């Protein structure tokens, strides 16, 4: 057995999940301890929010997870709805759901490309990115930007939807579904993929929850824990969908859960798109100054539960805004648990990382 040594992994490393680093303690091939080195993406959102006004602070609210910005945007809009005590029109609520679900699919497809990169199965990754590309085009068409959509604002949505919104959205869901099905078949049925992921990175749902994680990591471990069902926001109470769960809680199960989630999201989008027609109210204007009080929102992002806590003492700016980071427990406590409980070699380490699907900027904010 080789002696102990320290290895730095990332941030400039194709296997690192974005711009974060790790200090690995190694024993031969085996990783015995992984310490996260965050901060490469820290911008200080919570402070910057305090320098902005109510009406323009939401431009910052979604920028800390580029892969999956919309749940964050929706959450901040919701929290401000609560501060200003306004109730957005139903159409806006349905639109926000569509936006958040498309973002989830885009994020899962992005994850697919990343995961397949780490197991060395590059071909389906191209198709996954094509599916994501279709969604980004849709976003650019509706909201005017591919990544940062800036569309869910406090009080509703920013603008009315285009005339052919319903038909194009439905059309897109079928196109995406085709692509996703191909990717799914090519990935989940592949023996190499199975070998690389079965029994790797095992964590049970309840354990993960106790470690602070939520989202696909918990659901992959067999616990149907989803804020969309348990504490429905927007109009999630009025649509039909299931919460897919895995059994063992290994990397394969998490992949399975994510692919199933994509199909559930498409289901939600199809139901919600029926309620969004051009014309009619879509936005309640909010005043420039807020009443003192509290705003709180909980949404299910692609990486787990995300919460915003807004403290208002009146005036034109938020007094304090606090975000929860859904990815932080994934790379700290959950990763720790996995490394302690099974033999993770350096070759498997990127696979474990990718299967947890952390979003680096959201740890740092």
């Amino acid at each position, binding site marked *: 057995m080789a002696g102990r040594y320290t290895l730095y992994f990332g*941030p400039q490393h194709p296997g690192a999940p974005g*711009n974060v680093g790790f200090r690995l303690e190694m024993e031969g091939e085996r990783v015995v301890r992984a310490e996260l080195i965050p901060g490469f993406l*820290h911008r200080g959102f919570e*402070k910057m929010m305090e320098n902005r006004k109510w009406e323009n602070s939401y431009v910052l609210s979604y920028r800390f997870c580029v892969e999956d910005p919309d749940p964050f945007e929706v959450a901040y809009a919701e929290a401000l709805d609560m501060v200003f005590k306004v109730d957005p029109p139903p159409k806006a609520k349905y639109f926000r759901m569509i936006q958040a679900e498309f973002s989830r699919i885009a994020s899962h497809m992005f994850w697919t490309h990343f995961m397949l990169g780490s197991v060395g199965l590059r071909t389906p990754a191209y*198709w996954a990115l094509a599916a994501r590309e279709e969604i980004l085009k849709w976003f650019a068409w509706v909201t005017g930007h591919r*990544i940062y959509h800036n569309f869910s604002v406090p009080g509703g949505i920013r603008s009315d939807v285009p005339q052919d919104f319903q038909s194009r959205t439905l059309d897109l869901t079928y196109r995406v579904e085709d692509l996703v099905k191909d990717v799914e078949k090519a990935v989940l049925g592949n023996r190499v993929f199975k070998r690389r992921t079965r029994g790797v990175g095992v964590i049970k749902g309840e354990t993960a929850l106790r470690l602070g994680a939520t989202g696909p990591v918990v659901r992959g471990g067999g616990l149907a824990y989803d804020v969309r069902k348990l504490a429905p926001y927007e109009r999630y109470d009025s649509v039909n969908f299931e919460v897919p769960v895995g059994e063992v809680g290994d990397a394969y199960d998490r992949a399975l859960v994510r692919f199933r989630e994509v199909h559930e999201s498409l289901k939600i989008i199809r139901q919600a798109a029926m309620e969004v027609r051009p014309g009619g109210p879509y936005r309640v204007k909010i005043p420039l100054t807020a009443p003192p009080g509290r705003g709180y929102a909980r949404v299910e992002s692609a990486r787990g539960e995300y*919460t915003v*806590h807004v403290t208002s003492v009146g005036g034109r700016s938020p007094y304090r805004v*606090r975000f929860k980071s859904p990815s932080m427990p994934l790379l700290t*406590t959950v990763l720790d648990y996995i490394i302690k409980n099974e033999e993770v070699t350096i070759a498997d380490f990127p696979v474990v990382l990718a299967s947890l699907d952390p979003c680096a900027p959201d740890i740092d904010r």
Partner: protein
Amino acid sequence: MASLLRRLVDWARSRSPWMIHYCAACGAVEFPPLVMSPLDWERYGYMPVPSPRQADFVAGMGYLTRKTVKLMINLFRQTPNPKFVVAGCNCTATGGLYWDSYATYKRLDDFFTVSGWVPGCMPMPDDWTALITDLRRQIYEGLKGDKLKDAEEFIARVEEGERKWREEYFAKPQPPVNYAFKETYPECEERYERVKLCVTSVRRERLKTALAELKEKGFVLLSNIDAVDYPKNGVIELYYFVENKDDSSQVALKTFVPRSEPEIESVHDLYPNALFIEREVYEMMGVVFKGHPELRKWILDGNWEGPPPLRKDVDTATYVVKTFYGGDKYGR
């Protein structure tokens, strides 16, 4: 003859500029569409390479946090000559939306000479292509490599100033406590049905017992810890959000610590992820968690040397404008 040879070399160089595979910031999210489908980078001879030793150019892909800049300087040093720097995104050029962020440097050309800029927030894959196409053209026309400017000295000066500020800040006397607080635990004092949140107050001495009780009742997930600073009242309010594993209802335990003595018991033995959230609150707010095994800077390490930035009486925006924009808020 020699000039012909040089032109040949420039031509060859311009055919395949390789980029360091370093996803420095949010602009990197538009690279997969560029590298893979639908733009398929490699057919032009571009490629992301894992090692700076193989690379030809470095791309600034968005906001430059201070830690990232140090790393980029390092990467740039390791890249063989001639090497080029290009910049996409607005935050790279002027600070962009993060003009008042205490943790970013504002301009890439403070550190390197830069060969091309593409604005956008963020630029689309096409725009990145335009950027690199023009870099190619410039190389073909005989562009000399980009250079590192005198960066270390600037960085050291900024960090020295912040350290001094930190010392001054902690030497200041704290305002006296003037704060009304009533313990309501276990009753809710505010209840929000839709988000299933119940806010209740507890004194800081009893916080840990209260959390242990809640954990017994099924609130096994520590969702977040919020700290709100009230310099006028001389206190920092703390909110511990815990979540029930069965119905996902949440309880926010509100407590406070005086600013003169911001200490509270660590709860990492009840909730393992508190270890990291507490560390974050410590560096951002300056709240000391007693019994925490590793209470040192984490996210701010390398990014910020000054006083805890989220304190209300730490005016980072003014500081940033003064230090990085020369006092002009709209300056470049």
